[in-house]
Protein backbone atom coordinates (compact mmCIF):
# COMPACT_ATOMS: atom_id res chain seq x y z
CA UNK A 1 0.00 0.00 0.00
CA UNK A 2 1.22 3.49 -0.73
CA UNK A 3 1.36 5.28 2.58
CA UNK A 4 0.81 8.99 2.01
CA UNK A 5 0.77 9.93 5.65
CA UNK A 6 2.70 7.97 8.17
CA UNK A 7 3.72 8.31 11.79
CA UNK A 8 5.93 5.90 13.66
CA UNK A 9 6.13 5.72 17.44
CA UNK A 10 5.22 9.36 17.64
CA UNK A 11 5.63 10.74 21.13
CA UNK A 12 4.97 14.33 22.12
CA UNK A 13 5.61 15.74 25.56
CA UNK A 14 4.77 19.30 26.43
CA UNK A 15 7.32 20.70 28.80
CA UNK A 16 6.51 22.98 31.64
CA UNK A 17 8.11 26.35 30.91
CA UNK A 18 9.47 26.88 34.41
CA UNK A 19 10.50 23.41 35.49
CA UNK A 20 11.51 22.13 32.03
CA UNK A 21 9.95 18.82 32.99
CA UNK A 22 7.38 16.89 31.05
CA UNK A 23 4.15 18.45 32.21
CA UNK A 24 1.88 16.64 29.80
CA UNK A 25 2.36 13.69 27.52
CA UNK A 26 0.01 14.33 24.61
CA UNK A 27 0.97 11.34 22.42
CA UNK A 28 2.51 8.06 23.53
CA UNK A 29 3.99 6.31 20.55
CA UNK A 30 1.34 6.76 17.89
CA UNK A 31 1.56 4.62 14.75
CA UNK A 32 -0.68 5.74 11.94
CA UNK A 33 -0.77 5.06 8.25
CA UNK A 34 -3.08 6.65 5.71
CA UNK A 35 -3.08 5.32 2.18
CA UNK A 36 -3.61 7.11 -1.10
CA UNK A 37 -7.23 7.72 -2.10
CA UNK A 38 -8.64 7.12 1.38
CA UNK A 39 -10.98 9.24 3.42
CA UNK A 40 -9.64 8.72 6.91
CA UNK A 41 -11.49 9.82 10.04
CA UNK A 42 -9.45 10.65 13.11
CA UNK A 43 -11.55 10.36 16.24
CA UNK A 44 -11.07 10.74 19.95
CA UNK A 45 -12.49 12.56 22.93
CA UNK A 46 -11.49 16.15 23.75
CA UNK A 47 -7.83 16.31 24.67
CA UNK A 48 -7.07 12.92 23.12
CA UNK A 49 -4.24 14.32 21.03
CA UNK A 50 -5.83 14.78 17.61
CA UNK A 51 -4.77 18.38 17.08
CA UNK A 52 -1.34 17.57 18.48
CA UNK A 53 -0.90 14.81 15.89
CA UNK A 54 -1.91 17.19 13.12
CA UNK A 55 0.45 19.85 14.51
CA UNK A 56 3.32 17.38 14.27
CA UNK A 57 2.34 16.44 10.71
CA UNK A 58 2.55 20.09 9.70
CA UNK A 59 5.82 20.71 11.50
CA UNK A 60 4.32 23.07 14.08
CA UNK A 61 5.40 20.91 16.99
CA UNK A 62 8.57 18.87 17.17
CA UNK A 63 7.96 15.30 18.28
CA UNK A 64 9.86 14.28 21.41
CA UNK A 65 10.64 11.02 19.65
CA UNK A 66 9.41 9.07 16.64
CA UNK A 67 8.96 10.24 13.08
CA UNK A 68 6.23 11.55 10.83
CA UNK A 69 6.26 11.82 7.07
CA UNK A 70 4.02 13.02 4.26
CA UNK A 71 4.48 11.48 0.82
CA UNK A 72 7.56 9.78 2.25
CA UNK A 73 9.20 13.12 3.09
CA UNK A 74 9.99 13.93 6.70
CA UNK A 75 7.66 16.64 7.96
CA UNK A 76 10.62 18.77 9.02
CA UNK A 77 11.16 19.80 5.41
CA UNK A 78 8.95 22.56 3.97
CA UNK A 79 8.69 20.72 0.66
CA UNK A 80 6.65 17.98 2.40
CA UNK A 81 3.87 20.55 2.53
CA UNK A 82 3.80 21.33 -1.20
CA UNK A 83 1.00 18.91 -2.01
CA UNK A 84 -1.15 19.23 1.07
CA UNK A 85 -4.04 21.43 2.05
CA UNK A 86 -4.65 22.21 5.70
CA UNK A 87 -7.59 23.62 7.57
CA UNK A 88 -6.79 24.57 11.18
CA UNK A 89 -9.08 23.87 14.10
CA UNK A 90 -10.18 27.45 14.56
CA UNK A 91 -9.77 29.48 11.44
CA UNK A 92 -8.64 33.03 11.43
CA UNK A 93 -7.16 34.85 8.51
CA UNK A 94 -5.64 38.24 7.88
CA UNK A 95 -8.50 40.57 8.64
CA UNK A 96 -7.10 43.37 6.55
CA UNK A 97 -7.15 41.36 3.31
CA UNK A 98 -10.01 40.36 1.06
CA UNK A 99 -10.63 36.68 0.37
CA UNK A 100 -9.22 37.15 -3.10
CA UNK A 101 -6.01 38.78 -1.87
CA UNK A 102 -5.54 36.12 0.78
CA UNK A 103 -5.81 33.34 -1.78
CA UNK A 104 -3.49 35.20 -4.14
CA UNK A 105 -0.91 35.45 -1.36
CA UNK A 106 -1.11 31.74 -0.57
CA UNK A 107 -0.95 30.74 -4.22
CA UNK A 108 2.24 32.78 -4.55
CA UNK A 109 3.77 30.69 -1.79
CA UNK A 110 2.80 27.55 -3.63
CA UNK A 111 4.50 29.00 -6.68
CA UNK A 112 1.42 28.89 -8.86
CA UNK A 113 1.94 30.95 -12.02
CA UNK A 114 -0.34 34.00 -12.32
CA UNK A 115 -3.02 32.81 -14.77
CA UNK A 116 -3.27 29.40 -13.13
CA UNK A 117 -3.53 31.02 -9.70
CA UNK A 118 -6.41 33.20 -10.89
CA UNK A 119 -8.14 30.14 -12.31
CA UNK A 120 -7.73 28.25 -9.05
CA UNK A 121 -8.92 31.24 -7.01
CA UNK A 122 -12.07 31.52 -9.13
CA UNK A 123 -12.59 27.77 -8.82
CA UNK A 124 -12.26 27.48 -5.05
CA UNK A 125 -14.26 30.62 -4.35
CA UNK A 126 -17.05 29.20 -6.45
CA UNK A 127 -16.80 25.87 -4.66
CA UNK A 128 -17.19 27.43 -1.22
CA UNK A 129 -19.75 29.94 -2.52
CA UNK A 130 -17.89 33.10 -1.63
CA UNK A 131 -17.79 34.60 -5.12
CA UNK A 132 -20.09 37.47 -4.25
CA UNK A 133 -17.97 38.55 -1.25
CA UNK A 134 -14.56 37.97 -2.72
CA UNK A 135 -13.68 41.66 -2.73
CA UNK A 136 -14.77 42.29 0.85
CA UNK A 137 -12.34 42.42 3.76
CA UNK A 138 -12.29 39.17 5.73
CA UNK A 139 -13.00 41.05 8.95
CA UNK A 140 -16.54 41.68 7.69
CA UNK A 141 -17.24 37.95 7.24
CA UNK A 142 -19.44 35.81 9.47
CA UNK A 143 -17.96 32.82 11.28
CA UNK A 144 -19.29 30.37 8.72
CA UNK A 145 -17.87 32.48 5.89
CA UNK A 146 -14.48 32.51 7.60
CA UNK A 147 -14.60 28.73 7.89
CA UNK A 148 -15.31 28.61 4.16
CA UNK A 149 -12.36 30.89 3.45
CA UNK A 150 -10.35 28.33 5.39
CA UNK A 151 -11.60 25.56 3.17
CA UNK A 152 -10.86 27.62 0.07
CA UNK A 153 -7.26 28.23 1.15
CA UNK A 154 -6.85 24.53 1.92
CA UNK A 155 -7.81 23.72 -1.66
CA UNK A 156 -5.95 26.48 -3.46
CA UNK A 157 -2.99 24.32 -4.54
CA UNK A 158 -5.20 21.43 -5.70
CA UNK A 159 -3.67 19.26 -2.97
CA UNK A 160 -3.34 15.48 -3.10
CA UNK A 161 -3.73 15.23 0.66
CA UNK A 162 -6.09 17.27 2.78
CA UNK A 163 -5.61 17.54 6.51
CA UNK A 164 -8.68 19.01 8.13
CA UNK A 165 -9.03 19.64 11.85
CA UNK A 166 -12.73 19.56 12.70
CA UNK A 167 -13.81 21.00 9.35
CA UNK A 168 -17.51 21.13 10.18
CA UNK A 169 -17.38 22.64 13.65
CA UNK A 170 -19.27 25.91 13.76
CA UNK A 171 -21.09 25.33 10.49
CA UNK A 172 -24.84 25.15 10.02
CA UNK A 173 -26.40 21.94 8.63
CA UNK A 174 -26.19 23.34 5.12
CA UNK A 175 -22.52 24.15 5.51
CA UNK A 176 -21.81 20.69 6.91
CA UNK A 177 -23.56 19.07 3.98
CA UNK A 178 -21.46 21.20 1.67
CA UNK A 179 -18.21 20.15 3.36
CA UNK A 180 -19.26 16.52 3.16
CA UNK A 181 -19.97 16.92 -0.55
CA UNK A 182 -16.58 18.52 -1.08
CA UNK A 183 -14.82 15.66 0.71
CA UNK A 184 -16.72 13.10 -1.33
CA UNK A 185 -15.92 14.91 -4.53
CA UNK A 186 -12.24 15.00 -3.67
CA UNK A 187 -12.37 11.28 -3.04
CA UNK A 188 -13.75 10.63 -6.50
CA UNK A 189 -10.86 12.70 -7.85
CA UNK A 190 -8.52 10.26 -6.13
CA UNK A 191 -7.40 12.61 -3.35
CA UNK A 192 -6.66 11.56 0.19
CA UNK A 193 -8.48 13.22 3.07
CA UNK A 194 -7.43 12.98 6.70
CA UNK A 195 -9.73 14.73 9.11
CA UNK A 196 -10.55 14.87 12.78
CA UNK A 197 -14.13 15.14 13.84
CA UNK A 198 -16.60 14.76 16.65
CA UNK A 199 -19.51 14.25 14.26
CA UNK A 200 -19.67 10.48 14.28
CA UNK A 201 -22.72 10.24 12.06
CA UNK A 202 -20.92 12.13 9.37
CA UNK A 203 -17.75 10.09 9.82
CA UNK A 204 -19.76 6.91 9.47
CA UNK A 205 -21.13 7.96 6.10
CA UNK A 206 -18.03 9.36 4.42
CA UNK A 207 -14.96 7.60 5.85
CA UNK A 208 -13.29 4.52 4.46
CA UNK A 209 -11.27 3.96 7.59
CA UNK A 210 -11.15 5.53 11.01
CA UNK A 211 -8.75 5.63 13.91
CA UNK A 212 -9.82 6.23 17.47
CA UNK A 213 -7.32 7.60 19.93
CA UNK A 214 -7.71 8.13 23.61
CA UNK A 215 -5.24 9.83 25.96
CA UNK A 216 -2.57 9.81 23.29
CA UNK A 217 -2.86 6.14 22.46
CA UNK A 218 -4.30 4.43 19.42
CA UNK A 219 -7.28 2.39 20.58
CA UNK A 220 -8.69 1.14 17.28
CA UNK A 221 -8.08 1.54 13.59
CA UNK A 222 -9.77 0.02 10.57
CA UNK A 223 -12.72 0.22 8.18
CA UNK A 224 -15.84 1.73 9.71
CA UNK A 225 -17.87 -1.50 9.63
CA UNK A 226 -15.05 -3.45 11.28
CA UNK A 227 -14.81 -0.95 14.11
CA UNK A 228 -18.56 -0.96 14.55
CA UNK A 229 -18.65 -4.75 14.65
CA UNK A 230 -22.10 -5.72 15.70
CA UNK A 231 -22.89 -2.44 17.38
CA UNK A 232 -25.68 -0.29 16.07
CA UNK A 233 -23.67 2.85 15.35
CA UNK A 234 -20.18 4.22 15.29
CA UNK A 235 -21.10 6.33 18.28
CA UNK A 236 -21.78 3.21 20.36
CA UNK A 237 -18.52 1.66 19.25
CA UNK A 238 -16.66 4.89 20.07
CA UNK A 239 -18.11 5.03 23.56
CA UNK A 240 -17.20 1.38 24.17
CA UNK A 241 -13.67 1.86 22.93
CA UNK A 242 -12.94 4.90 25.07
CA UNK A 243 -14.40 3.04 28.03
CA UNK A 244 -17.50 5.05 28.73
CA UNK A 245 -19.67 3.68 31.58
CA UNK A 246 -23.20 5.00 31.60
CA UNK A 247 -24.08 6.53 34.97
CA UNK A 248 -27.05 4.90 36.66
CA UNK A 249 -29.86 7.45 36.89
CA UNK A 250 -30.84 8.08 40.50
Amino acid at each position, binding site marked *: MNAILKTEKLRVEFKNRETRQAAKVALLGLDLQVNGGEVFGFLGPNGAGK*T*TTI*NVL*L*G*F*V*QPTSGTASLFGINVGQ*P*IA*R*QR*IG*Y*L*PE*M*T*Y*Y*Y*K*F*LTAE*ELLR*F*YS*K*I*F*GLPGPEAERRIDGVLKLVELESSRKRLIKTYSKGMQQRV*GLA*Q*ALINNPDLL*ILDEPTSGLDPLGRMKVREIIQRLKTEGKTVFFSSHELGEVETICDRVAIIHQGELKAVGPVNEIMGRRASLEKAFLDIVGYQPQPTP
Partner: protein
Amino acid sequence: MRNILAVADIVIKELYRRKDFYVLFIVTILICLVMASVNIFNNPDIIRYVKSLCLLLIWVSSLVIAITTTARQIPAEREQRTLLPLLAKPLSRSQLIVGKFLGCWIACGLALLCFYAFFGALSASREHHWPVLSYLQAGLMHWVALAVVIALTLLGSLVFAAPSSNATICFVIVGGILFVGRYLDVVALSLQKPWQTIIYAVYFVIPHLEFFDMRKLIIHDWPLIQWRFIGLASLYGVAYAAFFLAAACLVFRRKAVN
Protein backbone atom coordinates in the same frame (compact mmCIF):
# COMPACT_ATOMS: atom_id res chain seq x y z
CA MET B 1 12.96 34.69 -2.73
CA ARG B 2 9.44 34.51 -4.14
CA ASN B 3 8.11 33.48 -0.72
CA ILE B 4 10.04 36.22 1.03
CA LEU B 5 8.65 38.88 -1.28
CA ALA B 6 5.12 37.53 -0.90
CA VAL B 7 5.39 37.83 2.90
CA ALA B 8 6.93 41.31 2.66
CA ASP B 9 4.11 42.41 0.38
CA ILE B 10 1.52 41.36 2.98
CA VAL B 11 3.37 43.25 5.72
CA ILE B 12 3.30 46.43 3.65
CA LYS B 13 -0.37 45.93 2.72
CA GLU B 14 -1.23 45.62 6.39
CA LEU B 15 0.68 48.75 7.29
CA TYR B 16 -1.01 50.95 4.79
CA ARG B 17 -4.43 49.61 5.65
CA ARG B 18 -3.96 50.24 9.35
CA LYS B 19 -4.81 53.76 10.26
CA ASP B 20 -2.58 54.14 13.34
CA PHE B 21 0.50 54.20 11.15
CA TYR B 22 -0.64 57.47 9.60
CA VAL B 23 -1.35 59.20 12.90
CA LEU B 24 2.26 59.39 14.00
CA PHE B 25 3.24 60.36 10.52
CA ILE B 26 0.84 63.26 10.33
CA VAL B 27 1.59 64.42 13.87
CA THR B 28 5.30 64.54 13.07
CA ILE B 29 4.72 66.54 9.93
CA LEU B 30 2.36 68.93 11.70
CA ILE B 31 4.82 69.59 14.52
CA CYS B 32 7.56 70.28 11.98
CA LEU B 33 5.28 72.68 10.15
CA VAL B 34 4.46 74.55 13.32
CA MET B 35 8.12 74.78 14.27
CA ALA B 36 9.06 76.01 10.83
CA SER B 37 6.46 78.74 11.00
CA VAL B 38 7.90 79.99 14.29
CA ASN B 39 11.11 80.81 12.49
CA ILE B 40 10.33 84.44 11.70
CA PHE B 41 13.65 86.16 12.37
CA ASN B 42 15.67 84.47 9.67
CA ASN B 43 18.44 84.23 12.21
CA PRO B 44 20.78 81.41 11.06
CA ASP B 45 21.17 80.12 14.61
CA ILE B 46 17.45 79.80 15.08
CA ILE B 47 17.09 78.17 11.67
CA ARG B 48 19.72 75.63 12.61
CA TYR B 49 18.06 75.02 15.93
CA VAL B 50 14.66 74.45 14.35
CA LYS B 51 16.22 72.16 11.75
CA SER B 52 17.90 70.08 14.42
CA LEU B 53 14.64 69.79 16.32
CA CYS B 54 12.78 68.66 13.20
CA LEU B 55 15.44 66.06 12.42
CA LEU B 56 15.41 64.79 15.98
CA LEU B 57 11.66 64.43 15.73
CA ILE B 58 12.01 62.54 12.47
CA TRP B 59 14.51 60.17 14.07
CA VAL B 60 12.33 59.55 17.07
CA SER B 61 9.18 58.92 15.08
CA SER B 62 10.97 56.69 12.59
CA LEU B 63 12.24 54.60 15.51
CA VAL B 64 8.77 54.47 17.00
CA ILE B 65 7.30 53.35 13.69
CA ALA B 66 10.02 50.76 13.12
CA ILE B 67 9.93 49.26 16.61
CA THR B 68 6.20 49.22 17.18
CA THR B 69 5.32 47.77 13.80
CA THR B 70 8.05 45.14 13.91
CA ALA B 71 7.39 44.10 17.49
CA ARG B 72 3.80 43.35 16.54
CA GLN B 73 4.40 41.16 13.49
CA ILE B 74 5.06 37.67 14.82
CA PRO B 75 3.03 37.97 18.06
CA ALA B 76 -0.01 39.09 16.03
CA GLU B 77 0.35 36.10 13.72
CA ARG B 78 0.47 33.83 16.75
CA GLU B 79 -2.40 35.47 18.57
CA GLN B 80 -4.71 35.56 15.58
CA ARG B 81 -3.56 32.06 14.63
CA THR B 82 -2.80 33.11 11.08
CA LEU B 83 0.62 31.56 11.60
CA LEU B 84 -0.84 28.04 11.33
CA PRO B 85 -2.28 28.15 7.81
CA LEU B 86 0.75 30.16 6.72
CA LEU B 87 3.37 27.74 8.00
CA ALA B 88 1.34 24.84 6.63
CA LYS B 89 2.36 26.10 3.20
CA PRO B 90 5.75 25.23 1.75
CA LEU B 91 7.26 28.27 3.44
CA SER B 92 10.23 27.83 5.71
CA ARG B 93 10.35 29.67 8.99
CA SER B 94 13.48 31.54 7.94
CA GLN B 95 11.69 32.77 4.84
CA LEU B 96 8.92 34.06 7.04
CA ILE B 97 11.38 35.94 9.28
CA VAL B 98 13.26 37.45 6.37
CA GLY B 99 10.01 38.36 4.64
CA LYS B 100 8.75 40.11 7.76
CA PHE B 101 12.03 41.97 8.06
CA LEU B 102 11.99 43.04 4.45
CA GLY B 103 8.38 44.21 4.63
CA CYS B 104 9.00 46.32 7.72
CA TRP B 105 12.23 47.69 6.33
CA ILE B 106 10.73 48.71 3.01
CA ALA B 107 7.75 50.29 4.76
CA CYS B 108 10.11 52.28 7.00
CA GLY B 109 12.11 53.27 3.93
CA LEU B 110 8.99 54.69 2.36
CA ALA B 111 8.20 56.57 5.56
CA LEU B 112 11.74 57.98 5.59
CA LEU B 113 11.42 59.02 1.98
CA CYS B 114 8.33 61.03 2.85
CA PHE B 115 9.94 62.50 5.97
CA TYR B 116 13.10 63.64 4.21
CA ALA B 117 11.25 64.92 1.15
CA PHE B 118 9.00 66.88 3.46
CA PHE B 119 11.94 68.18 5.45
CA GLY B 120 13.73 69.13 2.25
CA ALA B 121 10.72 71.01 0.95
CA LEU B 122 10.31 72.78 4.26
CA SER B 123 13.87 73.98 4.48
CA ALA B 124 13.99 74.83 0.77
CA SER B 125 11.00 77.08 1.31
CA ARG B 126 13.16 79.02 3.80
CA GLU B 127 16.65 78.82 2.40
CA HIS B 128 15.98 78.27 -1.29
CA HIS B 129 18.51 75.55 -1.82
CA TRP B 130 18.28 71.80 -2.22
CA PRO B 131 21.26 69.78 -0.94
CA VAL B 132 19.71 66.63 -2.40
CA LEU B 133 22.85 64.51 -2.06
CA SER B 134 23.20 65.38 1.62
CA TYR B 135 19.64 64.31 2.21
CA LEU B 136 20.32 61.15 0.28
CA GLN B 137 23.35 60.31 2.40
CA ALA B 138 21.61 61.11 5.67
CA GLY B 139 18.47 59.24 4.64
CA LEU B 140 20.38 56.22 3.46
CA MET B 141 22.36 55.96 6.68
CA HIS B 142 19.17 56.45 8.66
CA TRP B 143 17.57 53.60 6.72
CA VAL B 144 20.51 51.27 7.34
CA ALA B 145 20.29 52.06 11.06
CA LEU B 146 16.61 51.14 10.94
CA ALA B 147 17.56 47.78 9.39
CA VAL B 148 19.61 47.00 12.50
CA VAL B 149 16.79 48.17 14.77
CA ILE B 150 14.14 46.15 12.91
CA ALA B 151 16.22 42.97 12.94
CA LEU B 152 16.90 43.43 16.65
CA THR B 153 13.20 43.95 17.37
CA LEU B 154 12.27 40.90 15.33
CA LEU B 155 14.70 38.83 17.36
CA GLY B 156 13.25 40.30 20.54
CA SER B 157 9.71 39.43 19.47
CA LEU B 158 10.73 35.76 19.37
CA VAL B 159 12.55 35.84 22.69
CA PHE B 160 10.16 37.88 24.81
CA ALA B 161 6.57 36.76 25.00
CA ALA B 162 4.77 40.10 25.29
CA PRO B 163 5.11 42.51 22.35
CA SER B 164 4.87 45.55 24.63
CA SER B 165 7.76 44.47 26.84
CA ASN B 166 9.78 43.67 23.74
CA ALA B 167 9.09 47.12 22.28
CA THR B 168 10.09 48.78 25.55
CA ILE B 169 13.29 46.79 25.80
CA CYS B 170 14.17 47.61 22.20
CA PHE B 171 13.53 51.31 22.78
CA VAL B 172 15.80 51.30 25.81
CA ILE B 173 18.57 49.43 23.98
CA VAL B 174 18.39 51.58 20.86
CA GLY B 175 18.10 54.82 22.84
CA GLY B 176 20.98 53.74 25.06
CA ILE B 177 23.20 53.00 22.08
CA LEU B 178 22.33 56.26 20.37
CA PHE B 179 22.94 58.42 23.42
CA VAL B 180 25.72 56.74 25.38
CA GLY B 181 27.13 54.15 22.97
CA ARG B 182 29.93 56.42 21.81
CA TYR B 183 31.06 57.28 25.35
CA LEU B 184 31.33 53.72 26.64
CA ASP B 185 35.05 53.44 25.95
CA VAL B 186 35.70 56.63 27.88
CA VAL B 187 33.50 55.39 30.69
CA ALA B 188 35.40 52.10 30.73
CA LEU B 189 38.70 53.88 31.20
CA SER B 190 37.50 55.46 34.41
CA LEU B 191 36.47 52.15 35.96
CA GLN B 192 38.10 49.37 37.98
CA LYS B 193 39.25 46.13 36.42
CA PRO B 194 36.31 43.72 36.05
CA TRP B 195 33.89 46.47 35.09
CA GLN B 196 36.35 48.01 32.72
CA THR B 197 36.61 44.77 30.76
CA ILE B 198 32.86 44.30 30.70
CA ILE B 199 32.11 47.82 29.52
CA TYR B 200 34.86 47.55 26.91
CA ALA B 201 33.38 44.30 25.66
CA VAL B 202 29.94 45.92 25.45
CA TYR B 203 31.48 48.82 23.58
CA PHE B 204 32.93 46.49 20.99
CA VAL B 205 29.92 44.24 20.66
CA ILE B 206 27.04 46.68 20.29
CA PRO B 207 26.07 48.01 16.87
CA HIS B 208 27.11 51.65 16.94
CA LEU B 209 23.94 53.19 15.61
CA GLU B 210 25.29 56.67 16.31
CA PHE B 211 27.57 56.29 13.27
CA PHE B 212 24.44 56.42 11.18
CA ASP B 213 23.17 59.61 12.70
CA MET B 214 24.10 62.24 10.10
CA ARG B 215 21.79 65.00 11.19
CA LYS B 216 24.73 67.41 11.58
CA LEU B 217 25.51 67.05 7.90
CA ILE B 218 22.18 68.64 7.10
CA ILE B 219 21.98 71.07 9.99
CA HIS B 220 25.36 72.67 9.32
CA ASP B 221 25.39 72.17 5.55
CA TRP B 222 28.61 70.22 5.83
CA PRO B 223 30.22 68.86 2.68
CA LEU B 224 29.29 65.36 1.55
CA ILE B 225 30.87 62.30 3.15
CA GLN B 226 32.93 60.24 0.73
CA TRP B 227 30.73 57.57 -0.80
CA ARG B 228 33.12 54.78 0.08
CA PHE B 229 32.64 55.57 3.76
CA ILE B 230 28.91 55.46 3.23
CA GLY B 231 29.38 52.07 1.59
CA LEU B 232 31.52 50.81 4.48
CA ALA B 233 29.03 52.04 7.06
CA SER B 234 26.22 50.34 5.13
CA LEU B 235 28.14 47.09 5.17
CA TYR B 236 28.68 47.46 8.89
CA GLY B 237 24.95 47.97 9.47
CA VAL B 238 23.89 45.19 7.13
CA ALA B 239 26.25 42.78 8.87
CA TYR B 240 24.63 43.50 12.23
CA ALA B 241 21.15 43.20 10.76
CA ALA B 242 22.10 39.88 9.17
CA PHE B 243 23.49 38.67 12.49
CA PHE B 244 20.28 39.51 14.36
CA LEU B 245 18.17 37.95 11.62
CA ALA B 246 20.20 34.75 11.69
CA ALA B 247 19.76 34.61 15.45
CA ALA B 248 16.01 35.15 15.03
CA CYS B 249 15.80 32.30 12.51
CA LEU B 250 17.70 30.06 14.90
CA VAL B 251 15.39 30.87 17.80
CA PHE B 252 12.28 30.40 15.68
CA ARG B 253 13.42 27.22 13.98
CA ARG B 254 12.44 24.76 16.68
CA LYS B 255 9.79 26.77 18.46
CA ALA B 256 6.39 25.11 18.77
CA VAL B 257 3.73 27.29 17.21
CA ASN B 258 0.52 25.74 18.56
